């Protein structure tokens, strides 16, 4: 089996290298892409969309259809992991473990449960106290990571970045919280249902912005139609439209990352995480 795999890989790789010889040379000014496509974006992006970062403009405006389905792919990945891994237990485990927050005394209740209160928190069976140094450092770092994530989303017009990267950074900040504390801490702040709903909401914001343009009388994803809604001129409306869809992408990606992580790290049981 290994030999067959090697032969197939070498054949396909050889074919790929052979085909790559037909590509125009790197930064060849006479290649088809550089003769009529790139000059248009390089010269016209600023006056058509007032976005200095051409990559963001191409990604979220000129080729927004492509990016919309990329977001849908991320969403489907989250749903696929959920369907494959998530297991719902029919009945709750009989013994529950609780920890007194102030004193750190843990106790095991054989049947029934404690009424919800701030003094006691429910813990996993294999709970270990989080390391003080890791816990404190992560607690200090997480706000800065999140601010950076928001900056990356909001500043994608002017510098590298955008919805995908910012969303991943925001998701990573929550994963850091899950690693440094435990999964229960995250689920308490951001429940599974909220995760799933926000994933869909992110995709909906993207597709909804496109559909709104359609309703306002222009093409799907032609953000200049939003000018009458946002009270700006059509060029500025395209810039704002990009920001709106980037926020949608950011929400979808952030929640998908947290969703996938919680399912993978807890075998789909949402307890005893990593």
């Amino acid at each position: 089996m290994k030999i067959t795999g090697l032969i197939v890989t070498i054949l396909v790789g050889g074919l790929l290298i052979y085909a790559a010889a037909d590509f125009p040379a790197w930064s060849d000014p006479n290649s088809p892409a550089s003769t009529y496509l790139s000059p248009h974006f390089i010269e016209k992006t600023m006056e058509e969309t007032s976005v200095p970062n051409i990559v963001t403009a191409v990604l979220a405006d000129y080729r927004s259809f492509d990016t919309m389905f990329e977001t849908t792919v991320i969403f489907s990945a989250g749903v696929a992991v959920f369907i494959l891994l998530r297991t719902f237990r029919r009945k709750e485990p009989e013994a529950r473990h609780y920890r007194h927050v102030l004193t750190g005394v843990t106790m095991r209740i054989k049947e029934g449960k404690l009424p919800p209160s701030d003094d006691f928190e429910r813990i996993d069976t294999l709970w270990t106290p989080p390391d003080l140094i890791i816990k404190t450092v992560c607690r200090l770092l997480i706000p800065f990571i999140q601010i950076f994530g928001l900056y990356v989303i909001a500043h994608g017009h002017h510098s590298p970045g955008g919805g995908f990267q910012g969303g991943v950074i925001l998701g990573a900040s929550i994963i850091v919280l899950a690693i440094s504390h435990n999964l229960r801490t995250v689920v308490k702040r951001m429940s599974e249902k909220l995760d799933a709903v926000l994933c869909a909401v992110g995709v909906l914001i993207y597709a909804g912005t496109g559909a709104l343009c359609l309703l306002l009388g222009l093409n799907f994803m032609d953000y200049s139609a939003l000018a009458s809604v946002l009270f700006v001129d059509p060029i500025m409306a395209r810039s704002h439209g990009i920001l709106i869809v980037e926020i949608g992408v950011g929400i979808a990606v952030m929640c998908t990352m947290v969703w996938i992580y919680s399912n993978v790290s807890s075998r789909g049981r949402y307890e005893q995480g990593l």
Partner: protein
Amino acid sequence: MIWPIDLAILTLVVIVGIGALMVKDLLGAAILFGAYSFMMCLLWTVMGAVDVAFTEASVGAGVSTVFFVGAVFRTSRRTKD
């Protein structure tokens, strides 16, 4: 593009890629894959594609390594083949 840097990174990409395939320990493979993503990120930066490099650094080297480590932690650490 500075060719010595380019050559060094490309060599490392190939070495780390083969290493990630060859190593028996899956946790090691996950970490090598993270290193591979980071090398690719450097390569994108050298080529001037900063947005792609940023995505590669955050998704490839960051979050996907965590997913791999989580999956290894929840399954087995050694490969059968």
